[in-house]
């Protein structure tokens, strides 16, 4: 159904007891034009754009658990496009523009809130680096403002500006950045894709690929039987290496655990998203009032979806250095998600050497903000067999060609510690 003020009024009159399903619980058919493995934000967005923009509606999204149960439900919901290197800048701005119209496109309230992000700087050199980043953004038509200390103080007076080791000198502000509701993004794409005919099949784990005599992928084996496919797209970040191994591929990726934290709810404190420039700590405040924050990966290979104490301590130390009163707030929840850490810290969206198999992987720390952009460019790749203009550098063979995109030098092995 289409949601509107009228559907809301109608449902209210019957006590909200007669809402229809947001999307169908589809049974697998024997064959689809395109099968997407992975019912997270990226997989569902890909299916939506295939149906909406590229006219391919015979599409299935296969999810081993329930949709949004992987990293789509384990992130810190931040949306931004403050990237500097060619390849990243345009892609993340494409994604940002899709975020800005997502609710209208999907007919779903994703609670997109453009409250801004401030990346703090703590030295003259860091100010210069941020000024350069801001200039690159502005040349590319992206909003960026360099703030001095007085301007940051006005926005966030609670910060520890006079920290003896890392005094806050100012920050780089992107006003259009912000947060969105992660579950709503998943359900929004499921809702919109479903209305266009996409089958969303849950509890359907892919266990292998079927290939013809030329090696072309002709479908997938699943826990619910074999499903034929003209093309197969993988959007299973965190587990990309495991799925790729079923097709005999090794990837330039390590899986690592990244933790995130939520405090008890407090009154409105932090206006937008805030990042510490001298350590790895970032924080925003959810609509419910909890402080949502995180930092570094734990630093060892893991598929366990839980982390360890040293990184919790490190993250909390970053928070204490930036805003000492955070120490009075109790930690409510903590969780870990499994990141595809690519070797240069940048995603891979490309065809694979195997005919009929397409790869969307390597999102490192930053998959959530890329959700709509990733869906659009991956759908473009699958539908046309050519990379989208804004994703033409996210190639699988870039390591072999020496064409890495090391935006922050943060891959699996940053060796910065």
């Amino acid at each position, binding site marked *: 159904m289409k949601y509107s003020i009228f559907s809301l009024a109608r449902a209210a009159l019957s006590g909200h007891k007669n809402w229809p399903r947001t999307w169908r619980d589809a049974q697998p058919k024997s064959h689809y034009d395109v099968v997407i493995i992975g019912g997270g934000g990226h997989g569902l967005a890909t299916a939506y754009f295939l149906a909406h923009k590229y006219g391919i509606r015979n599409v299935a999204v296969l999810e081993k658990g329930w949709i949004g149960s992987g990293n789509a439900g384990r992130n810190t919901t931040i949306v931004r496009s403050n990237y500097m290197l060619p390849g990243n800048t345009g892609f993340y701005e494409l994604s940002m523009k899709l975020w800005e119209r997502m609710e209208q496109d999907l007919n779903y309230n994703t609670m997109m809130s453009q409250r801004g992000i401030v990346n703090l700087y703590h030295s003259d050199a860091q100010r210069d680096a941020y000024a350069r980043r801001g200039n690159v953004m502005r040349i590319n038509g992206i909003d960026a403002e360099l703030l001095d200390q007085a301007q940051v103080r006005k926005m966030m007076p609670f910060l520890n500006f006079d920290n003896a080791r890392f005094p806050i000198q100012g920050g780089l502000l992107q006003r259009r950045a912000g947060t969105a509701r992660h579950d709503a993004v998943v359900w929004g794409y499921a809702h919109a894709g479903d209305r266009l005919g996409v089958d969303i099949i849950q509890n359907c784990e892919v266990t292998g690929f079927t290939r013809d005599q030329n090696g072309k992928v002709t479908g997938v084996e699943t826990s619910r039987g074999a499903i034929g496919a003209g093309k197969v797209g993988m959007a299973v970040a965190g587990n990309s*290496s495991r799925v790729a191994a079923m097709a005999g591929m*090794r990837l330039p990726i390590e*899986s690592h655990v990244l933790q995130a934290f939520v405090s008890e709810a407090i009154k409105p404190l932090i206006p937008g998203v805030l990042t510490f420039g001298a350590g790895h700590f970032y924080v925003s405040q959810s609509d419910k009032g909890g402080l949502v924050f995180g930092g570094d990966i734990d630093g*060892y*290979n893991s598929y*366990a979806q839980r982390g*360890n104490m040293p990184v919790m301590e490190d993250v909390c130390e970053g928070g204490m250095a930036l805003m000492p009163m955070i120490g009075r707030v109790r930690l409510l929840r903590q969780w870990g998600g499994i990141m595809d850490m690519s070797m240069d810290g940048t995603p891979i969206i490309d065809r694979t050497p195997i005919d009929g198999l397409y790869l969307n992987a390597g999102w490192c720390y930053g998959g959530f903000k890329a959700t709509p952009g990733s869906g659009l460019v991956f759908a473009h790749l699958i539908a046309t067999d050519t990379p989208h203009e804004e994703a033409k550098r996210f190639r699988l063979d870039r390591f*072999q060609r020496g064409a890495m995109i090391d935006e922050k030098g943060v891959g*699996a*092995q940053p060796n910065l510690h």
Partner: protein
Amino acid sequence: MRIACPFCGERENGEFTYLGDAKPKRPAMVAIDGGAGAPGEAEAFYDYVYLRDNFAGEMSEYWYHGGGCRSWLVIERNTLTHDIKSVRAAPGAGAAKAGAK
């Protein structure tokens, strides 16, 4: 996750730094070492530097006890559960260097 260092006893994992999979061996790079270079050399090096098994299950890994005895260790650990099966000293001083096993 706590790691029982064979020299220092059981310590919290914050004292240790991770290097990664202990299986890959550095291939010979004759071209760089002044030779003519063998066919497939660049591919072998690409494989060694960038590609990973990224194994889900038990794998042997190099860890460095920087917060303790500063020894290189080889740890068999399950990446699905974080359970540690064995910890032993990496053979030879500087065992992570080329060719060590």
